[in-house]
């Protein structure tokens, strides 16, 4: 592909703990990516990925595989131990965003990225109105016109299919599916080029899951936003991801077009995952 990726992560690693003589040079040999001597956890080890305009990239893996750590680092919730992170959008200089100032990180998070968490408590202020929740990112991006923000929030509520009559209510009164919709509306509020979704359908009823995933597909189609979707559930990935990365123990073991991975899985872990789906 000649096109430049909109988002590029290179050689990203995240460890918790300082490491010791035993583990520093032998990460590959550790079982379960924890050092038995110093208890250092190598949550993610040398992960690189590219995201292209308009595509949905899936990351699948079991819990503890490091997939949410990767996503967290892209939203600056997790500080990288090593690696480079670039966003190729017009306003952005080609610099390693992991090394940017906190102010710059905050600005990028507010204007170029949207995040939807599995746990709506992380993404929403449960006691503020849905409207304020959606406006929060706009306010953070220095919008200071109330009417304009209310109007934009109405449009977004329409997109995520929440009746405007409920917009002054607090998400604490909403169902799980509705809370995810508010989170999605909030993530979209500043029209970011990249959306990050972390296990957003986990814990929801199957029919609600399908609705939320439909919504994601619609958003991708109509707004042509690029997305990274993290899930432990291959069924979710199969429904929406164009390309897929498979992670085990903090490392990428397989990647490719989603259809290709589903039809011809190479790694034993992926094979197990695919066969269990059938």
């Amino acid at each position, binding site marked *: 592909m000649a096109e430049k990726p909109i988002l590029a992560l290179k050689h990203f690693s995240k460890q918790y703990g300082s490491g010791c003589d035993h583990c520093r040079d032998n990460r590959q040999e550790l079982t379960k990516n924890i050092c038995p001597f110093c208890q250092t956890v190598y949550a993610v080890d040398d992960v690189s990925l590219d995201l292209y305009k308009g595509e949905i990239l899936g990351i699948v893996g079991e819990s503890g595989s490091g997939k949410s750590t990767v996503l967290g680092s892209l939203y600056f919730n997790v500080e990288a131990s090593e690696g480079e992170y670039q966003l190729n959008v017009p306003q952005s200089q080609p610099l390693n965003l992991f090394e940017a100032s906190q102010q710059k990180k905050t600005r990028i998070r507010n204007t170029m990225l949207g995040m939807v968490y599995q746990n709506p408590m992380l993404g929403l202020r449960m006691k503020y109105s849905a409207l*304020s929740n959606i406006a929060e990112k706009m306010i953070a991006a220095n919008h200071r*016109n*109330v009417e304009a923000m209310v109007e934009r929030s109405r449009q977004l509520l329409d997109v995520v299919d929440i009746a405007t009559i409920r917009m*002054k209510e607090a998400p604490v009164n909403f169902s799980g599916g509705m809370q995810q919709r508010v989170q999605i509306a909030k993530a979209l509020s500043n029209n970011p080029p990249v959306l990050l979704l972390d296990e957003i359908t986990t814990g929801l009823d199957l029919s609600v899951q399908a609705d939320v995933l439909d919504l994601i597909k619609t958003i991708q189609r109509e707004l042509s936003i690029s997305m990274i979707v993290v899930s432990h559930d291959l069924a979710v990935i199969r429904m929406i991801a164009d390309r897929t990365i498979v992670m085990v123990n903090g490392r990428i073991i397989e990647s490719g077009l989603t259809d290709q991975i589903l039809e011809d899985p190479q790694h034993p872990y992926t094979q197990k995952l695919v066969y269990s789906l059938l």
Partner: protein
Amino acid sequence: MKYQGNYGFLDELSKKEIRRSILKAVAIPGYQVPFASREMPIARGWGTGGLQLTLSLVGPQDCVKVIDQGSDESVNAVSIRQLIQDTTQVETTWHTREATLIQSRHRIPEVPLKEGQILVLQVPIPEPLRSVEPSEEETRKLHAYGEYSLAWLKIFEQIIKFDQGSLSADHPVLVNHRYLMAPSPIPRFDNPKMNYNEGLILLGAGREKKIYAVPPYTEVKSIDFDDYPFTFETFAGKACRLSGLTDVFLDEIIDPKTQTASYQTNDQSYLLEILDEREKEKHG
């Protein structure tokens, strides 16, 4: 009981230390400087922050005025003034113009401050973000990054619910384009008085152990939205029943017999000055 301690109660080393914190506060307008707040002979929450500032600054050449909610004669104002006088023998006054050092709770006097005057405000909660973020560790980070959207969000939510952004006293202000600051629980009516004011305004929170300042001629802007600008309390159509003044903060007074409300100037020394002047004009 006769006072038996040091000039200005605190020992000289403590006063010096507090003055150094004041200098830092003046150098960084609106920034909350932590200081080792001392226990005072009056209770925490009753003006110990303001009192430590006043006692660290006061000298024999000063003239001190103390007000509480606009009144020089309110019990707490009396109590604090007495303490200052007992421990320093300094001259005191009711007249804003005469004072070099004014300690106040919840009001800025109606008479504008002049160069050389210091206004010390007592502060119960110095952190403007505290109502939206309970953790000090977090709010310190938010100040460091200049990340204040939470304060605007709180106002946004009020507008959504009540169609009005400013609802009560202690409305946050942005000082010198940088630090978000709690102006102390002064009415919103007093917020504009801070902007490019000629005197030095010092704010002291004893219990929370913070000192901050608005130096003379500093921009102080009450936060708001473009289409919902900051507003202060209105007394439209009302006037002080004694002076007829309309451009001052008014107390609402209920007649116990008729249950009707009338209004009176809250800044009592200013009211008395106006009334005295008129009396003189009449007789002079």
